[in-house]
C-alpha cells in the first residue's frame, strides 16, 4: 500500500497550525487548552495510524531547480517514532492541563509544545535532507522555549541556553554532513540531490562515491556528532540533566519519546547507508560509553528527575550501541528499545511529577514508603522501574537481552578487545538495576523524613502514566504482539540485510542470558552499598582534573562572552569612518578572496568599449578626483555635478536615453539641493594627518580593486547573448505589456510592485525631510513662547 501524501502532510501540519492558533485557543479555553492540544495530538496519531502497513515515498516539489521537495518516506521506523511521539503527546497534553494549573505563560507553553511535536513528526517522516534539517532545528528551537519555560529563573535560562548551544551546534554538524551526502550523491545518483530515500536505495553506490572522494569518514563523523549532541551521548550529555528544570510534562515528553530520540532515530535511519568498520568502532563505543557513564551518574543522583535524566542518557547509549553493531541483533535492540524506553521512561517522569506535586520534594533521600498514600502511582512505578532495570518478564528485558546478544555475537566473531563490548554492557546494566531499585525505593519501606499530608493525585495526573504503564505491561506479556504490529517494520528499515525479529523469554541457557543474570544479581547485591558507591562517584565527578564536559562548556561560553564584550567597542566605537572601514574592508577582502579561489584569468580586452565611452568615463573619473581635492564645498558640488552629467552622457552612448533623461533631471535637482543646504553649513574641515590619509587611501584602493576585479570577472563579453530575462521582457513587451518602450513596460507593468515600493521610498524620504526641517523650528518656537515648559519633540532638545 502506498502512503497518502495528503494524510501525511496533514498529520505533520496540524500541530504547527494549532501552535499558531494556540494563543487564540488559550483566550477562549483557558487552561483547558491542554485538552485541545491532546485532541490535536490524537488527530495526528489517528492520521498516521491509517498509514501503518504502507511503505513508500511521496513527494511534492518545492524548489525543482535544486531538487528540493516536500518528501515523506513512510516505513516502519519513521512511523514507530512518529506514532510514539504523537501518542505520548496525547497523554502529555492531558497531564499538562492539570499539572500546569495556575501557571503563567501557558499560551506560549502550549504553542511551543505543539510546534515541538510537529517538528518531531517532521523529522520522523521527512526524507528530503533539507526538510530533515529544518525540522531538526525546529525541535531545538521549540525545546529551547520549553526548557526555558520559567523565564524568571536564572537556572532555567542557563539550562535552556545550554541545550540550545549543544543541540544547535550539533545541528550545524548535521547540515555539513547532509551537504557532504548531497555532494556524494552527484557521483552515485547522477546530479546533486537531497533525496535520502534514493540514497538509501543505492547505499552501495553512495558508499563507493563517498570513499572515492575521501569524504566517508568526515560525513560519518559529522552525522554521528550531530546525533550525539541531540541524543546526549558522552561527552555531550551534560545538557540533558540540566534540561530537567523544564516543567515535568515537558521533561517526560523530551526525555522519553521525542527530543533525545531524534539522534537515535537518525542513526537508525542512516545505519544501512553508513555501515562500515568505522561506524561500528565509533557508534558502538560511543553508545556503550554513554550507557556506562549515564548509569554511574544516575546512581549518584539524589533528585528524582536528575536520576531519570542520567538514566535516559544511559538508555540512549544502549540504543546507539545497538545501532552501532553490524549484526542483526544490534538493529533489533535499537528499534525495540526505542519503543520500550518510551513506554517506561515517560510514566516514570510523570510519576516523578506526581510525587513532587503531592509530597512537595524531589529529593530521594527524603522520600520513602509512599505506597500507602499513592498505591496506584506505586504500582505504575513498579512496572516501569522493573522494566527500566531489565528484569524479566518486563518489556525492557527483551530489548536489553537483544543488545547482550549483539555484543556477544560481535565479540565471539572478532575476539580480542571486542570482548570489552559484552563486558562493558554487563557492568552498565548492573548499575542500571541499582538506580532502578533506588528510584523504586521511594515507594517502599519506611518514611525517611516527615512529610506533611500527601494528597491523592487527581485522575488527570494518574491517568496518563497508568495508560503508559498498561501499554508497557501489554508489551511485557505479549512482546511478539508489538513486534508484529510495528517493530518488525522498523527493524527492516534499519537493518543492513534481511532481519526477522522474534522475541520471548529465553527457554534455555546461553551466554547472553548469563549476562542478564549477572546484571540482575549483581545489581541487587550492589544496591545495599549504593550510598558508598554514590559518594565515590561524586568524588570522581568533583575531582579537580577537568573531566566535566559542562566545565568546558562554561569556559567556552564565558570566553566567548568576554571576547565579544571586548571586540564590540573596537568595531562599534561611534565613529562613522570606523564602521565604513570594517564593512568595506571585510566585504572587499571576502569578495577578492572568493574571486581568487574560484575564477580563472579572464580574456582581457584592453579597451572593449567605443572611444567616446572611454573619453566620457575618463572625464568622469577625473571629476571624481576633483571632488576629493576640491578646496571648498561649492567647488566639490560643482565637480560632483560634472561627474553626474558625464554619467548622463555615458547613458546616451550606452543606448539608454531614458536613463540619460532621468539622470539629467536628478543631477540638476541634486545640485540645487546641495547649494541650498551648503549656504547654511560652515566651510569645510580638511583632514591634515598624513597617516589617516594614507590609511584611507589604502582602503579606497582595496575597494576599487574589488570593484575592478568584479567588473572584469562578471560582466559579459561583447558577443554574449542577452540574458533569458531580457529576452523574455523584450519579446513580451508588446503582447504582454502593451507598450513599445521596453524599459517603461518593465517598470510600470512587469515589475510594477517594485516601482510602487520605489515611490514609497521617495515619499518616505520626502516626509522625513519635511519633518526634519520643520520640527526643529516648531520646537524652538514653543520653547521661546513658554520658557519653562519642556516640549517633547522626540528628545531633540538640548
Amino acid at each position: 500500500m502506498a502512503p497518502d501524501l495528503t494524510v501525511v502532510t496533514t498529520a505533520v501540519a496540524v500541530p504547527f497550525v494549532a501552535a499558531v492558533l494556540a494563543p487564540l485557543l488559550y483566550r477562549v479555553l483557558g487552561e483547558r487548552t491542554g485538552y485541545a492540544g491532546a485532541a490535536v495530538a490524537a488527530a495526528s496519531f489517528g492520521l498516521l495510524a491509517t498509514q501503518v502497513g504502507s511503505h513508500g515515498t511521496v513527494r511534492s516539489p518545492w524548489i525543482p531547480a535544486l531538487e528540493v521537495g516536500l518528501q515523506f518516506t513512510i516505513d516502519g521506523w519513521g512511523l514507530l517514532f512518529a506514532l510514539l511521539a504523537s501518542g505520548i503527546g496525547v497523554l502529555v497534553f492531558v497531564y499538562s492541563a492539570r499539572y500546569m494549573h495556575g501557571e503563567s505563560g501557558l499560551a506560549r507553553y502550549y504553542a511551543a509544545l505543539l510546534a515541538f511535536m510537529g517538528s518531531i513528526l517532521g523529522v520522523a517522516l521527512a526524507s528530503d535532507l533539507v526538510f530533515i534539517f529544518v525540522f531538526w532545528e525546529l525541535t531545538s528551537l521549540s525545546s529551547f522555549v520549553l526548557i526555558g519555560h520559567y523565564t524568571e529563573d536564572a537556572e532555567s535560562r542557563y539550562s535552556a541556553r545550554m541545550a540550545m548551544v549543544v543541540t544547535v551546534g550539533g545541528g550545524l554538524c548535521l547540515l555539513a554532513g547532509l551537504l557532504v551526502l548531497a555532494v556524494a550523491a552527484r557521483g552515485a545518483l547522477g546530479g546533486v540531490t537531497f533525496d535520502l530515500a534514493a540514497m538509501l536505495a543505492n547505499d552501495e553506490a553512495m558508499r563507493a562515491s563517498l570513499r572515492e572522494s575521501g569524504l566517508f569518514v568526515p560525513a560519518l563523523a559529522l552525522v554521528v556528532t550531530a546525533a550525539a549532541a541531540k541524543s546526549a551521548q558522552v561527552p555531550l550529555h551534560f545538557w540533558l540533566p540540566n534540561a530537567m528544570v523544564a516543567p515535568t510534562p515537558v521533561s517526560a515528553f523530551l526525555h522519553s519519546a521525542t527530543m533525545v530520540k531524534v539522534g537515535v532515530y537518525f542513526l537508525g535511519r542512516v545505519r544501512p547507508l553508513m555501515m562500515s568498520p568505522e561506524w561500528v568502532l565509533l557508534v558502538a563505543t560511543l553508545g556503550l560509553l554513554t550507557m556506562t557513564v549515564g548509569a554511574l551518574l544516575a546512581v549518584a543522583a539524589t533528585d528524582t528527575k536528575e536520576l531519570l535524566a542520567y538514566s535516559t542518557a544511559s538508555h540512549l547509549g544502549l540504543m546507539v550501541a545497538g545501532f552501532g553493531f553490524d549484526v542483526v541483533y544490534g538493529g533489533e535492540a535499537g528499534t525495540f528499545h526505542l519503543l520500550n524506553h518510551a513506554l517506561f521512561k515517560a510514566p516514570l517522569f510523570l510519576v516523578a511529577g506526581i510525587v513532587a506535586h503531592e509530597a512537595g520534594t524531589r529529593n530521594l533521600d527524603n522520600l520513602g514508603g509512599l505506597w500507602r498514600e499513592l498505591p496506584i502511582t506505586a504500582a505504575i512505578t513498579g512496572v516501569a522501574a522493573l522494566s527500566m532495570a531489565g528484569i524479566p518478564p518486563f518489556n525492557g528485558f527483551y530489548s536489553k537481552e537483544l543488545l547482550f546478544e549483539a555484543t556477544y555475537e560481535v565479540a565471539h566473531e572478532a575476539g580480542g578487545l571486542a570482548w570489552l563490548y559484552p563486558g562493558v554492557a554487563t557492568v552498565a546494566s548492573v548499575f542500571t538495576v541499582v538506580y532502578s531499585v533506588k528510584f523504586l525505593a521511594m515507594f517502599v519501606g519506611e518514611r525517611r523524613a516527615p512529610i506533611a499530608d500527601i494528597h491523592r493525585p487527581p485522575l488527570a495526573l494518574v491517568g496518563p502514566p497508568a495508560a503508559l504503564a498498561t501499554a508497557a505491561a501489554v508489551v511485557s506479556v505479549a512482546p511478539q504482539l508489538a513486534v508484529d504490529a510495528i517493530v518488525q517494520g522498523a527493524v527492516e528499515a534499519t537493518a543492513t540485510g534481511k532481519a526477522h525479529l522474534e522475541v520471548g523469554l529465553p527457554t534455555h541457557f546461553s551466554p547472553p542470558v548469563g549476562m542478564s543474570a549477572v546484571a540482575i544479581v549483581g545489581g541487587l547485591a550492589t544496591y545495599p552499598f549504593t550510598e558508598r558507591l554514590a559518594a565515590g562517584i561524586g568524588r570522581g565527578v568533583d575531582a579537580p582534573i577537568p573531566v566535566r564536559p559542562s566545565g568546558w562548556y562554561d569556559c567556552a561560553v564565558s570566553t566567548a562572552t568576554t571576547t565579544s564584550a571586548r571586540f564590540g567597542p573596537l568595531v562599534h566605537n561611534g565613529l562613522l569612518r570606523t564602521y565604513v572601514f570594517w564593512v568595506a574592508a571585510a566585504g572587499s577582502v571576502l569578495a577578492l578572496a572568493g574571486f581568487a579561489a574560484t575564477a580563472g584569468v579572464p580574456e582581457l580586452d584592453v579597451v572593449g568599449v567605443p572611444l567616446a565611452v572611454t573619453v566620457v568615463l575618463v572625464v568622469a573619473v577625473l571629476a571624481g578626483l576633483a571632488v576629493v581635492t576640491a578646496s571648498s564645498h561649492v567647488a566639490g558640488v560643482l565637480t560632483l555635478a560634472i561627474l553626474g552629467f558625464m554619467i548622463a552622457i555615458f547613458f546616451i552612448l550606452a543606448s539608454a536615453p531614458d536613463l540619460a533623461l532621468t539622470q539629467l533631471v536628478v543631477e540638476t535637482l541634486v545640485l540645487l539641493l546641495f547649494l541650498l543646504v551648503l549656504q547654511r553649513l560652515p566651510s569645510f574641515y580638511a583632514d591634515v594627518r598624513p597617516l589617516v590619509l594614507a590609511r584611507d587611501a589604502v582602503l579606497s584602493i582595496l575597494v576599487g580593486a574589488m570593484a575592478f576585479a568584479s567588473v572584469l570577472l562578471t560582466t559579459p563579453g561583447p558577443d554574449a547573448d542577452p540574458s533569458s530575462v531580457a529576452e523574455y521582457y523584450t519579446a513580451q513587451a508588446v503582447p504582454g505589456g502593451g507598450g513599445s518602450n521596453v524599459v517603461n513596460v518593465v517598470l510600470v507593468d512587469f515589475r510594477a510592485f517594485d516601482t510602487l515600493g520605489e515611490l514609497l521610498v521617495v515619499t518616505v524620504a520626502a516626509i522625513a525631510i519635511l519633518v526634519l526641517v520643520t520640527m526643529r523650528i516648531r520646537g524652538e518656537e514653543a520653547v521661546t513662547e513658554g520658557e519653562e515648559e519642556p516640549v517633547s519633540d522626540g528628545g531633540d532638545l538640548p
Partner: protein
Amino acid sequence: MSVALAVAVGGLFAVGTFLLLRRDLVRVVFGLAVVSQATFVYLIAMGGVAEGARELVPVLDTHGGGVPEIADPVVQALVLTAIVISFGTTALALVLSYRAYEENETIDVTEWVR
C-alpha cells in the same frame, strides 16, 4: 571584459570610499553620491556596452513584428530605479547633515563622539 570600464568603475568606487571616510560630513554625502554613480556604471556594464546606435535603444519600432536585438532593458530598468532611489538617499542625507549640524554645531563627525 572591458578593462576601460573596469578601471572607471574601480576608480569611482575608490574615490567614493575615500570620501566616505572623511570627517567633513558634506564630503561623506559626496562620497555617497559618487558610490551611487559608480554603481550605475557597474549595472550598465553588466548588460554589456556596445557602440551606441538607434537600433539598440530598447524602444520597439512597431507593435508586432519580430523581436530585434536591443541593449539589455533589465539593467536599464534597474538603473532607472537606482537613480531615483539614490536621489532620495542623497537628499535625505543632506538634510540629515544640516539637521545634525544644527544639533551639534559642527559637521566634523569625529567630534560627535564625546
